[in-house]
């Protein structure tokens, strides 16, 4: 083993060791930025893969992305056509962006997202798909212009990415079940009134339904959100931008 690949290994193990003590998503971002820079990566994102009903910004866990690119990517809904995201859903193996297939002729939007990314120094990338035990699908995708991406660095990056994802997941606690199980309009409404400080009785009066029905909507929201009580359900619904106040 060469001296250099030994250093990658050391960096990877030390990075993993440091993650445990990090208290917040912000500190995980700083730590990832510091370590991934050593391999030439400038940008990265950890995100769930959205169901058809979900918006991209609802499923992102953490990111170091140019602000303007995030806005364009969200506004254009590129997540639906991004070949990197598509390959993520269909493989468990890490891959380079250049390995994510698309047809420039028949898929102009796929070509557009890859081309426009290069305007933001996201020329090449490396993507690690995550397929969780409950069907939770996510990925860590990182990119830059001058990457040190070889058969010697990839194993270290692969391992670092898996642990970075896990730390982000622990800290941000994404919803395990999503998609079809998002909140109904009535559930959102009752949570919004709860967030505004109304009791179940008040909410019932406002909406013209019984207090019992209000409570039933809240209980069902708690189940869907994996929340222990109404307060946590409101907090999680806001965290995932399912309600706004």
């Amino acid at each position, binding site marked *: 083993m060469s001296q250099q690949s030994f250093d990658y*290994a050391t960096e990877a193990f030390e990075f993993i060791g440091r993650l445990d003590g990090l208290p917040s998503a912000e500190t995980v971002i700083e730590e990832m930025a510091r370590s991934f820079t050593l391999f030439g990566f400038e940008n990265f994102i950890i995100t769930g893969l959205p169901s058809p009903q979900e918006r991209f910004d609802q499923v992102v866990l953490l990111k170091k992305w140019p602000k303007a690119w995030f806005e364009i990517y969200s506004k254009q809904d590129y997540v639906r056509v991004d070949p990197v995201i598509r390959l993520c859903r269909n493989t468990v193996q890490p891959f380079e962006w250049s390995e994510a297939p698309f047809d420039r002729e028949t898929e102009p939007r796929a070509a557009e997202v890859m081309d426009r990314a290069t305007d933001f120094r996201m020329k090449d990338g490396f993507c690690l798909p995550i*397929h969780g035990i409950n069907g939770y699908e996510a990925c860590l995708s990182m990119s830059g212009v001058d990457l040190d991406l070889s058969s010697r660095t990839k194993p270290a990056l692969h*391992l670092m990415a898996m642990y970075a994802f896990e730390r982000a997941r622990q800290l941000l606690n994404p919803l395990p079940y999503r998609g079809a199980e998002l909140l109904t309009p009535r559930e959102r409404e009752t949570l919004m009134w709860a967030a505004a400080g109304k009791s179940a009785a008040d909410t019932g009066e406002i909406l013209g339904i019984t207090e019992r029905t209000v409570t039933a909507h809240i209980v069902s929201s708690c189940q869907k959100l994996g929340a222990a009580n109404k307060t946590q359900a409101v907090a999680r619904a806001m965290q995932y931008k399912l309600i706004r106040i």
Partner: protein
Amino acid sequence: MTCVHVITHANRHFYEESLEQFHRLRHQIFVEERGWSGLRQPDGLEVDAYDNQHAVYLLAIDAGRLVGGQRLYPTLLPHMISEVFPHLAQLGVPQAADILEWTRYFVVKERRTGRTDCRLLAAMQEFCLGEGITEVTAVVEMWWLPRWQQAGFKVRPLGLPQLIEGQPCIAAAVEISQASLEHVRKLAGLRGASLIRNGLSSRIHQVPHVAA
């Protein structure tokens, strides 16, 4: 209903049929499905050097049909990481009386939706807790790592991933803890103890005290 049975040298006579299914499924899954062609056997039964009197099997059986399995083996004896994959453990091969090696884990294809996995993972933790085991070591395909972590397991890498039969694999140590057991049980809605110990005392004590 699926139950996980503890099978050792002492009670294997109750389970000859399940063990034959186990070796046959191992061949189907590891050789034919995953392509570990080095394990191929003409009789379609995958049996290796560690299927001996020291091995403990935890088999998930539903109405007489095997739906998943796993094997535990003492690390004080020569075992797969020490003999076959020492290059995967750049940080050293853990060997102790309270560390077992965890191998040949699988779930049959039609049960790979999560719950059978959780049941087997919970069974592994529950068995090890009862035996005073503190850690298990394993070689695993990298895509399994987040699944273990999401099941609540604390996983320590023993080295960097390397390609085995074209798949990135890693040697890792998994902590045995009540917290991990409770986490994985909760995830699958499993209540309480679930291990069946036909003809076994509550603790096996078969871990050898000297390195062989």
